[in-house]
């Protein structure tokens, strides 16, 4: 099972991630437990999920937009964003939109090809949980959260860009 980093600690994962089958077919709708379901499963079973007994999470693939769940965010205790390949950067935009535009405050988890060297930017974009790829050294990866002590741009963690903070600090 993948190692989970959450709140800067290596923790046990209590969620079950439901994936699509090898031919892309959707899994059965779960009956109980804390599960993260594919977006399409949520969309297909939205009404019945309203009475779901456990905690419900949803995961978006890189090609799927947060727009699809923007009106339902309060339904989810967790949203995950899949990185099909570490070089696929769409998930960074999805995360920022969820946090900044749609105001999602719950757990935002990076899943898929989640590697040591990408955690810092993921964190800046609003992810607070990282389901590392199996082969990653989680202890080493923890240090990557703090690769850079600052950044120029606006981000979820630093909504005020450096140039405004420099000015506020009176630095010429």
């Amino acid at each position, binding site marked *: 099972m993948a190692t989970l980093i959450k709140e800067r600690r290596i923790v046990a994962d209590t969620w079950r991630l439901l994936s699509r089958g090898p031919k892309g077919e959707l899994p059965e709708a779960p009956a109980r437990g804390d599960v993260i379901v594919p977006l399409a499963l949520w969309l297909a079973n939205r009404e019945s999920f309203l009475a779901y007994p456990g905690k419900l999470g949803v995961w978006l693939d890189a090609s799927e937009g947060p727009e699809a769940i923007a009106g339902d965010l309060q339904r989810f205790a967790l949203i995950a964003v899949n990185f099909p390949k*570490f070089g696929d*950067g769409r998930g960074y935009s999805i995360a920022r939109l969820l946090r900044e535009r749609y105001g999602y405050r719950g757990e935002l988890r990076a899943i898929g090809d989640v590697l040591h060297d990408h955690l810092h930017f993921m964190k*800046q974009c609003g992810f607070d949980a990282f389901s590392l790829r199996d082969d990653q050294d989680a202890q080493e990866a923890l240090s990557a959260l703090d690769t850079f*002590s600052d*950044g120029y*741009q606006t981000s979820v963690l630093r909504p005020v860009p450096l140039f*405004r903070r420099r*000015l506020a600090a009176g630095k010429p």
Partner: protein
Amino acid sequence: MYVYDEIDQKLVDERVAQFRDQTRRFLAGKLSDDEFRALRLRNGLYIQRYAPMLRIAIPYGLLSTRQLRKLAHIARKFDRGYGHFSTRQNLQLNWPRLPQVPDILAELATVQMHAIQTSGNSFRNITTDHFAGVAQDEIVDSFVWCEVLRQWSTFHPEFSYLPRKFKFAVNGAKSDRAAVAVHDIGLHAVRDEKGEIGFKVLVGGGLGRTPVIGFVIREFLPWQHLLSYCEAILRVYNRYGRRDNIHKARIKILVKERGPERFREEVEAEWKHLKDGPSTLIPEEIARIESRFTRPAYLPLPATDAGLATALASDKAFANWHARNVHPHKKPGYAAVTLSLKKTGVPPGDVTAEQMERIADLADRYSFGELRVSHEQNLIFADVQLSDLHSLWGEIRALGFATPNIGLLTNIICCPGGDFCSLANAKSIPVAEAIQQRFDDLDYLHDIGEIDVNISGCMNACGHHHVGHIGILGVDKNGEEWYQIEVGGNQGEVRPGVGASLGKVIGPSFARAEIPDVIEKLIECYLARRDSDAERFIDVVHRVGVEPFKESVYGNADQRAAHRRGHLASA
């Protein structure tokens, strides 16, 4: 120079530490080739045909002599004692050893330099007019805006894994010397009727295997909105740009597939959310960045110099050089000088460590300790007193950098080509050399006048062949090196009249040995048709079309068929 503050410095230092750790993990087998590749490219490190290549960033081409001396030191200590200035105003070293690269980066950081994002699918070095800040036709000092964008585009958390590389060009003068129409985003500074600064924004231009002239997505973007608007463009690109095919992943393909109007609507819709947000630029920040640039302490000087006039009248060689390699300056009594790195027999853009040090000494003495790298792969001393020109010329002539060919046929833009680059289909440097040898008569060169000849060793187009007035492209045919000729490309409106355009292939390709003859025929065709000395090669192509040039090379239709048969027989 923009002088770092402690935060700028800290980020660069942290980058060195990050790459040191990544290299350590790679060498320890904890990072796969594929994963390390993506990380090392972000630090400019390629694995090349013979050895790694390290591309060092020279943001917007501006260098201090302290930095140049450091580059010389690095070239000597870690490499074979020379470097190659590239068309993106960067410096490439060709033989660094991987375990030493973190040390090289650490050395660079001591002089506020780095190799950040000089490759990989992220923002690349931002390029601009090499006469920024000194041009007589200046609208704004584009260095300031380049630095604003450099900071914004460095380690951008959301846009560090784009579908493909992303290149900005900024032009701050009336003439376009930055080729803004052939960049992913081109920004052309303009002033509105109230004198307020803004930018004409072009998007989706580019060279490479699908050359496109960028389209104007906004005629006037007030400067305050520069970052939020770019964020909107980049977010649309990051989310919807193609990732399934590396050759279709640049923003130009997205713009093309969507259609420019729909693309514009999507950007505008995204921008609605970002406009007037915290990324909105404020005058204090522009003033802060301006104030962190070192500025030459110009002397109040008369606009002319008697000694210079005498030297020009009495020294023909000096006058030739002055006519081509000295450029007007906005301050009276000063001029900008181009040091030509295009001497025949030397790969274009190559400089030895010793030469770097000598150049640094000269820049200290003659040009306030700073210099620029141009995208034409030459060096510029931007602030030379008119009274010093003659003695400076004597010194750089001794170094071999006074070839009076700026703007002329032998000032060839050329990629490293098959001699160095693993992507190349064909060699490019020997082609440049053969052309330079053929056109070695200076009077003839001056008579031909301004012309851009650009050579790329493959369709990735690092030698910008699509925008050469004559473009030469190396192609591979059954394992042999052939060269395709294009005519009519233009990098931008450097002179009023002819805007940016892409060259057209004139016909079947040639063997390397044939190229000087072909160029000569094209030149003769031009000379026979120009209406005066003032009408440049490119002006004639735009006036009469490509057909006469085609005919001059291949003859009429019958002769062309024979040419093709000949090639088929030999292929």
